[in-house]
């Protein structure tokens, strides 16, 4: 029987949005692993990490609270799962902050009366990666591998928000290993000494402070090259976008020749599990990994 979850896709995963390839590849992955993601009906934006300029504490709390309340109403027995780092972080953080602050919870629920919802805080808010590690397990993932990612040297870029402050699987904030373990599970070579594993890509500040942001991304890519990587893999859509799509700008600014593919873990899994390039949404990447495509096309 399929494992079912109350799914919070988030704005970037929508059709035609910046991480629609993550959405697609996760969809494929769920088919493979017999996982059913039930979208939270009429979900709204979580406020991301930059919402604070316009939104105060309480309005921002209510955003996620509404999503949680919707999930509580429609999927009472299912954990909430998000694929986007910021979506997961915000939802989980709001869940915990409301539980620890009765006043805030009370006010949030007053606001939620406007949509006839109530936040009770009984939900577990999880990241898709947690589902894979804890509910599926590395062994089960390994068992699914049909086309091992042989010869691929992969820098696991965990970034910030799928890491801090909650962590995945109790791992270290400074040196989480889960991406590396996944890569190895899929038959690839994990570059475990990759120094920029948890460095910041500048997040939303890439938009407002592009020079500062690109300086950070430059180091992230450079370190991957120094470690001999064929590609970077990440669980975070904003990390993926920031590291992938500005490489032209960075090359212009720093006189570099970066052309480093930045993939999602879900895309790697789809390919390793034997799915084709389309199912793995490889077309969704601006910089293609020929090596990965070759395996997908095998």
């Amino acid at each position, binding site marked *: 029987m399929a494992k079912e979850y109350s799914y919070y896709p988030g704005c970037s995963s929508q059709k035609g949005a910046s991480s*629609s390839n993550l959405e697609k590849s996760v969809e494929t992955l769920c088919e493979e692993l017999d996982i059913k993601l039930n979208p939270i009906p009429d979900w709204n934006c979580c406020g991301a990490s930059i919402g604070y300029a316009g939104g105060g504490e309480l309005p921002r709390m209510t955003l996620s609270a509404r999503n949680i309340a919707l999930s509580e109403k429609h999927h009472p027995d299912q954990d909430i799962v998000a694929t986007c780092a910021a979506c997961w972080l915000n939802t989980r953080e709001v869940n915990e902050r409301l539980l620890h602050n009765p006043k805030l919870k009370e006010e949030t629920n007053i606001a939620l009366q406007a949509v006839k919802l109530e936040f009770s805080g009984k939900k577990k808010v999880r990241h898709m990666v947690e589902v894979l590690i804890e509910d599926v397990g590395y062994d089960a993932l390994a068992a699914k591998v049909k086309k091992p990612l042989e010869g691929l040297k992969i820098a696991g870029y965990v970034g910030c928000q799928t890491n801090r402050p909650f962590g995945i699987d109790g791992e270290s904030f400074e040196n989480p290993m889960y991406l590396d373990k996944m890569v190895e599970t899929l038959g690839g070579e994990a570059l475990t000494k990759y120094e920029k594993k948890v460095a910041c890509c500048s997040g939303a500040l890439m938009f407002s402070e592009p020079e500062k942001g690109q300086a950070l991304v430059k180091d992230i890519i450079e370190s991957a090259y120094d470690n001999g990587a064929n590609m970077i893999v990440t669980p975070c859509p904003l990390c993926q976008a920031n590291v992938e799509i500005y490489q032209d700008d960075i090359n212009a600014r720093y006189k570099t020749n970066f052309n480093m593919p930045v993939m999602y873990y879900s895309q790697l899994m789809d390919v390793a599990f034997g799915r084709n390039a389309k199912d793995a949404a490889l077309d969704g990447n601006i910089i293609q990994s020929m090596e990965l495509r070759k395996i997908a096309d095998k």
Partner: protein
Amino acid sequence: MSTAVNQAMVEKYKGNFLKEVTENVEEGNWVKMCMQCGVCSGSCPLGPHWDHPPQEIFMMIRANKREEVLSSTSMWMCTSCYNCIARCPRGLPITHIMHGLAHYSKRIGLKPKNQPTEKFGQMFWDNLTKKGRVNELKLGLGLYFKDGFAEGVKVAMSKQKLGMNMMKAKRMSPMEMLGGHGVSDLAGFHAMLKKAEELEAARVGENTDKK
């Protein structure tokens, strides 16, 4: 309106900025717990761009440097990487405090002028609250035009290739221009946010009334 709130706050807290922060800023009640170890300041990815890193801001709050703190660009440098929270030996939710201070400075009208993150952040908020979900295309275009039309055209032109790439990869859709995604219970959504904003404003107002 902002300046009125500001005046009321100055009046109310009479040089006790720590108390003002404690009572009005998101997670501001944690500021008193800082022991000035500086681990947050050293952990920030955009650290070199902070005029005053978090630990110093906490000290400035105790030293009643109200204007200097609230008009600083520093808090707007936060990338929400959570390094500071993860490492703080006293458990201060520093990321949230930075966000809180930034928001508060805006609320009472002391925010720095022409701060790009402040502008972008507001744009983002307006974008998401309009339909309940973010319209990335409009947001992106808005960003290009944030410094005026001429500047916007220039930026947009320079970003043309990026945009084309994204469209080619089906990660950006021109259809968004025509409406795009949104929540269906938009009225309820807006009512909810309005209520939340009222409650929050009342908090500050309530505080300003209290002597």
